[in-house]
């Protein structure tokens, strides 16, 4: 029944149009309407999961319209087992973000809600695009609402943060555009799936790979192009941080899977050491940096970088596993681990930023030293915070464990020391997360500000409960999440084992 509904178009344009509609509404209607739009979008994204054919790696729910025929640019949409979960993650997170901004945002609420809805549509567009130009348009357009969110509703230093954010990501995108144009010149088409079939000589592959890598590495972000993220997070309003961490960072990982690996498999194999090293640096180096942060948001931002290191490690370690074992299975496991890590990180980091938001709304401080003994006055909130902190530390039976587990055990097949380095997050992740919990939540009530805190209300409890259930569910039973990606990942891994260098 959904076949002729143009589901993906609906998921892109409904929130965008809904966002524009919200702009025109009077203030009392803004919040309910925004919520309804986001809820409907979320519900409409569910058929993607339930109607998904898990046996095929082909694109599903495809749509194809001619857009700019002179250049062969098409309005082509479709999802596979990698994009589909990310779209649902987007629609799900948007609902929570709208709820989270319900009371706090008193300044221009219509614009605030509209920005999130429009951004939701654009992000869905990024994940659903099968045409390079369409992809690029969404990719760039998505930056605008985020730029505004930080710039208008952000903290004191927001101008510096927005500029840094914009310049970093924009610089990256320019390289990507060059690569896309080069590919167009070779394929005579902007279809991403056509790009996958291109035979490209090694020297060109290396250049394309590096161009893509710059764009995606900034987004992930990977060391050493990560320093925009902590600044952006610190200045962003809570909802902005949630979207940034939960969805936007995933674009980088998604880009590696959609572009770098299938288009330039030989260059990926040649340069896998580069990504693997940068991932390990992200995991270890950034964890140490996270340990000494004084600002809760910065700490979680650095933690995000370290956790995303698992995603990139999982995507590229497969080449080494193949070399060691001669089998593709380990690579598939690592890649699925990386994808699960992206999804799970969306929930957990989102939840943690919401938790910081809860405190910030009440105390207007993100400094760890301004807190202490919060568990005394906000016991219910403390329970959630400790739970999500444990999930962030990769506790089994939470979704945070699944991806890390798969990547670590798969990496072991490639090289003991890579697994050793990756597994260090078991210690470091627990250290920085729980040390923060100790200083913020435990101990005697630190000051009068903390003493006057009021525990979370129904709305906040509901948001955190939903997230907690999801985090637990995917930890206890990740099979349904993994099942949708098997065919796609298997296909991708097999694709990688075949050289594309023209003979």
């Amino acid at each position, binding site marked *: 029944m959904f076949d002729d509904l143009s589901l993906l178009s609906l998921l892109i344009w409904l929130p965008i149009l809904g966002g524009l509609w919200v702009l025109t509404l009077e203030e009392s209607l803004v919040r309910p309407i925004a919520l309804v739009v986001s809820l409907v979008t979320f519900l409409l994204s569910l058929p993607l999961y339930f109607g998904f054919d898990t046996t095929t790696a082909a694109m599903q729910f495809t749509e194809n319209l001619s857009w700019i025929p002179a250049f062969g640019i098409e309005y082509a949409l479709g999802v596979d087992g990698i994009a589909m979960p990310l779209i649902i993650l987007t629609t799900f997170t948007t609902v929570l973000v709208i709820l989270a901004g319900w009371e706090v945002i008193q300044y221009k609420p219509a614009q605030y809600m509209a920005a999130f809805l429009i951004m939701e549509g654009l992000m869905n567009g990024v994940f659903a695009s099968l045409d390079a130009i369409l992809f690029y348009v969404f990719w760039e357009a998505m930056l605008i609402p985020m730029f505004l969110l930080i710039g208008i509703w952000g903290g004191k230093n927001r101008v510096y943060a927005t500029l840094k954010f914009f310049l970093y990501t924009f610089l990256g995108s320019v390289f990507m555009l060059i690569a896309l144009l080069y590919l167009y010149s070779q394929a005579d088409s902007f279809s991403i799936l056509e790009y996958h079939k291109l035979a490209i000589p090694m020297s060109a592959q290396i250049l394309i790979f590096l161009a893509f890598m710059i764009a995606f590495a900034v987004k992930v972000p990977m060391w050493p192009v990560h320093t925009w993220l902590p600044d952006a997070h610190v200045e962003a309003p809570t909802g902005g941080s949630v979207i940034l961490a939960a969805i936007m960072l995933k674009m980088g990982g998604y880009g590696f899977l959609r572009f770098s690996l299938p288009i330039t498999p030989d260059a990926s194999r040649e340069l896998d050491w580069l990504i693997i090293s940068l991932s390990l640096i992200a995991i270890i180096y950034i964890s140490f940096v996270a340990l000494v942060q004084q600002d809760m948001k910065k700490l979680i931002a650095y933690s995000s970088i370290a956790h995303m290191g698992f995603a990139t490690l999982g995507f590229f370690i497969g080449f080494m596993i193949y070399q060691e074992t001669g089998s593709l299975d380990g690579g598939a*496991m690592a890649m699925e681990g990386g994808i699960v890590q992206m999804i799970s990180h969306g929930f957990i980091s989102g939840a943690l930023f919401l938790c910081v938001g809860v405190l910030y709304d009440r105390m207007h401080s993100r400094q760890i030293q301004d807190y202490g003994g919060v568990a005394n006055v906000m016991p219910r909130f403390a329970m959630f915070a400790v739970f999500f902190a444990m999930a962030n530390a990769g506790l089994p039976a939470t979704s945070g464990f699944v991806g890390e587990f798969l990547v670590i055990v798969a990496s072991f097949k490639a090289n003991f020391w890579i697994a050793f380095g990756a597994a260090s997050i078991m210690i470091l992740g627990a250290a920085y997360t729980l040390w923060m919990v100790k200083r913020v939540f435990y101990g005697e009530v630190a000051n009068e500000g903390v003493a006057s805190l009021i525990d979370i209300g129904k709305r906040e409890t509901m948001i955190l409960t939903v997230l907690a259930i999801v985090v637990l569910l995917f930890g206890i039973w990740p*099979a349904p999440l993994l099942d949708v990606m098997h065919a796609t990942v298997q296909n991708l891994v097999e694709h990688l084992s075949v050289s594309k260098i023209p003979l």
Partner: protein
Amino acid sequence: MQNVFLAIVLAPLIGAITAGLLGVSRRVAHSVTISAVAISFLLSLYVFYEIIFAGAAPFNISLYTWLESGNIRLELGFLVDSLSVLMMVVVTFVSLMVHIYTVGYMHDDPGYQRFFSYINLFTFSMLMLVMSNNFVQLFFGWEAVGVVSYLLIGFWFNKETAIYANLKAFLVNRVGDFGFILGIAAVLMAFNSLDYAEVFGLAQQGQYPETISLFSGIEWSMMTVICILLFIGAMGKSAQFPLHVWLPDSMEGPTPISALIHAATMVTAGIFMVARMSPLFELSETALSFVLIIGAITAFFMGLLAIVQNDIKRVIAYSTLSQLGYMTVALGASAYAAGIFHLMTHAFFKALLFLGAGSVILAMHHEQDMRKMGGLKKYLPITYITILIGSLALIGAPGFSGFFSKDAIIEAAYHAYEAERFGAGFAYYAVLLSVFVTALYTFRMFFLTFHGKERMDKHTREHLRESPWVVTIPLILLAIPSLLIGIFTITPLLFGHYFDGAIFVNNNPFNPEHYHGVLNFIGHAFLQPPVWLAAAGVGTAVFFYLIRPELPGILAERTKLIYDLLVEKYYLDRFNDWFFAGGLRNLGSVLWKIGDVKVIDGFINGSAHLVGTVSKLIRQIQTGFLYHYAFAMILGLAVLLSIFVFGTA
């Protein structure tokens, strides 16, 4: 049977949710949680009966597929055989005792429901751990008990020492888990499966890669790598040197959990795990030697520390470390059965000692310093008798439960020594000497608490009275097995076929041909050194703490160097604080302030500045005066022309 197993694990989980999340009253909280554990206990007894007496085959049941990835399917499920059912009974029994005891002990605490919720959750996690049939679920339970332990050590989260201790406990355990997860990864690499039955089957057929290359060119035995990595996990959880440092600090938690988690059950998870993995450990002589040496170091050196402690709970905590060392020595000597046997007897008498200490602490109004006790015998008769039984069991007085298990371990160590296993000689003498040390610190504690001068203040003395029945009944119920369990179980556990099919040993140290019944075993012991060493230990304690109580202080003065070394716990905590906690934080600061802020952001902001400066310079050229532009044009024309002219010439 599957439903029975599900009921056993889920009952405490439901109890935990009820008491923790539904906001019920105190009465409902303790009723629900105690009933839940009682259900688990009774059903465990039923399963025990079915397997041991009715002769049911071990159950290996798959519950559901956790995930599938690559070519691996990871299923969660239960393996219930003689080994796990023994653990189930011990865990649920001690847990039940602790639950009942808590009603009295935590009576006035505002976090009453939360506490019951946690200990129910703990019981669930521990049962999942011991009943697992695969490495994934083992790790789930492993981490879950760690989290509950974290929550319970920090139960009084306003207490700075408690929240320091719980963070430390979690992080040190994570160091062990770090090894453990790499061990699991190694198992997966070698066997392409994480299911016990499959892995053990392949291991016995020798179907796994012989070696693994860790450093280029040097090949290591695969099995040694697997076993040592797994054992590192056990070292964290079962507090073996040098990862033992968290256990003494964990005493900051309420006493019931010290008994349940940090003596009887969770800390023995490592011992259980190695016994469960006996088909793997038996294949690596090197790993077993490693286990043996670590266990011996822990048994002897941690026992010594108990002698200088003044906090009654800390004495018992160091004693627990030392006894865990004994169990580890048993594992390293391939006497897994003896390790599990000691695990069981220790669970009873150590839980008893902790709960007894808790009863003393209650009577003393939460005073734990033994220097302020003394002469409590006449005020706390039931506590006195039960602690005496526990102490005698701990030092291995002939006939008491601890006697059998400890003697078995010493014999096993001797057996390994004879078989020339590397490190066994050291281990044998370590566990032997520890018998004296154990007796000394145990009766030092006993005499300081119950005998001699009454050193408490007047107010405390006036309020001294025996604890309520909810406290004393569990003491009595634990005293019975502490006294008797050894006599009844040594024959089947060590010399019979109880563990057949669950534990694998190549060269069993316990030869049934040399065994002629329990009485003979006891009689034989009087011809061996351990009994006399224990007697000497008690004698020393009598002399120093009853006859000449002024001597220990003088002795401490005279041997200040050694005394300080012991009081400072071999300076290990200081080293860890300085090197790990401090050093790694400094490393973080350097990486952040220099790596991120100076170098990377410096570069970024620097290039932004560079662009700014260059554009400022270039802007100077854009003057807006026509004659400037005309001059530039003419100049350009001249340059182009000269290139054209001279270039072609």
